[in-house]
């Protein structure tokens, strides 16, 4: 019998939502780490009971937590993220240069090869690795040495490395995405990196819309069976690359707005993609107050609104970049959390939706584990 575990990071704690494979009746555990911002919680693909969590606080800084029993018990692990050598400089909002300064961990990505190895994407943007289950962290220095960090700049939410993708067919190939810098790819397990932004245009954000660096990429996603195809939700524009990031082209098509944060791919259909359009960069809520997930079955360009079970009036929440995920059951489950504290689930690939919970703190991240028991 399959089970589903939804790991929810919120502004005031983490929650674990569980259901059997029918995904009709849910239990809600939490808050874990009540009062803390839980930027991200994610399980190891090698051992789903091994969870890593980023716990952060304006008062007490960054903490990292690890669980070895699926979130019942947690242990605080290493929380020192020291840039390697000279921290370097980046562009600031006002055009001046600022030194890189660690602020928080935005994203944790457990390794596909070793349960004790985990990557962390941090603000100010850098990539870190732990090979001892989170006890100690080292910067993967190639990313910032091989790229022009003096053109990196913070987006509205800070300068975070928020997406880490590992090619499941070729584990030495990794992608990271940074707001506002772009997409970067490594083909040697993170030793060296190259920027992959050809074709991306940011007419309203950059003086040179086709600049190599500086694009406010909000999220990228891939399907494990077709990892050379990447999907991107940028500040404005939804894009696709068919050649592992070498070239990008816009696939926003008929979306009511091509601004948004998350983008996710169906578990079994590599061309089926989900986004949640948001009105604009200053109006972080759905167009017309209607919360709609849009699904394309063609890898973009042609989108259909998914509305059944979602509020279609007076809805002014946002869905953040890490707050959407899928399970791998048949039919594919799709989940997202809102800044209003709702976690919506669809057990039929988006055709219909229902809230699992309605009144959590603002949701920062969602991850889903499909378990067998």
């Amino acid at each position, binding site marked *: 019998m399959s089970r589903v575990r939804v790991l929810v990071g919120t502004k005031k704690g983490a929650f674990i939502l569980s259901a059997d494979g029918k995904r009709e009746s849910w239990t809600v555990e939490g808050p874990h780490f009540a009062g803390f911002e839980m930027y991200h919680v994610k399980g190891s693909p090698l051992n789903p009971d091994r969870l890593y969590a980023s716990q952060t606080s*304006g*008062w*007490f*800084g960054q*903490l990292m937590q690890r669980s070895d029993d699926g979130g019942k018990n947690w242990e605080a692990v290493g*929380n*020192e993220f*020291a840039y390697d050598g000279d921290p370097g400089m980046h562009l600031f909002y006002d055009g001046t240069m600022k030194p890189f300064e660690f602020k928080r961990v935005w994203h944790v990505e457990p390794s596909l090869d070793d349960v004790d190895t985990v990557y962390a994407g941090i603000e100010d943007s850098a990539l870190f690795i732990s090979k001892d289950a989170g006890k100690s962290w080292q910067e993967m220095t190639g990313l910032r040495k091989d790229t022009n960090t003096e053109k990196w700049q913070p987006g509205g939410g800070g300068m975070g490395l928020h997406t880490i993708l590992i090619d499941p067919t070729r584990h030495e190939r990794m992608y990271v995405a940074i707001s506002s810098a772009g997409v970067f790819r490594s083909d040697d397990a993170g030793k060296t990196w190259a920027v992959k932004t050809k074709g991306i245009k940011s007419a309203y954000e950059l003086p040179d819309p086709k600049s190599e660096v500086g694009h406010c990429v909000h999220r990228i996603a891939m399907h494990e069976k077709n990892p050379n195809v990447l999907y991107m939700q940028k500040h404005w524009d939804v894009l696709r690359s068919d050649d592992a990031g070498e070239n990008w082209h816009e696939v926003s098509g008929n979306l009511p707005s091509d601004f948004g944060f998350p983008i996710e791919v169906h578990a079994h259909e590599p061309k089926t993609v989900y986004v949640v359009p948001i009105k604009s960069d200053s109006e972080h809520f759905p167009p017309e107050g209607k919360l709609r997930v849009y699904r394309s079955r063609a890898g973009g360009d042609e989108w259909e609104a998914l509305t059944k079970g979602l509020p279609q009036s007076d809805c002014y929440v946002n869905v953040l970049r890490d707050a959407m995920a899928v399970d791998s059951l048949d039919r594919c489950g799709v989940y997202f959390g809102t800044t209003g504290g709702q976690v919506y689930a669809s057990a039929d690939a988006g055709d219909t939706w229902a809230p699992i919970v309605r009144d959590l703190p603002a949701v920062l991240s969602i991850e889903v584990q499909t378990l067998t028991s």
Partner: protein
Amino acid sequence: MIRIELPHHLRTLARVDGEVRLDVQDPVTLRAALDALEAAYPVLRGTIRDHATRQRRAFVRFFACEQDLSHEPVDAPLPEAVIRGEEPLLVIGAIAGG
């Protein structure tokens, strides 16, 4: 022996109830007290002081004997009543956001 009173979240993190009591070698300064606290509870490293700079985190305050010691030199002796264990050193999460 000195007494340190931690805020709720740090007590939870350190898994302690009530005050923490620590032996601190002379001279009993704020730096020495925090060094002893972090040695006894390594999980608190980085939560009160920045890992790299060892500076107080911006929204943490140190109170004792009805004084705000947050901006005092970290190598200045703590108040006598704290050194004698008559009064606690309070680590406070500063008022913010509300």
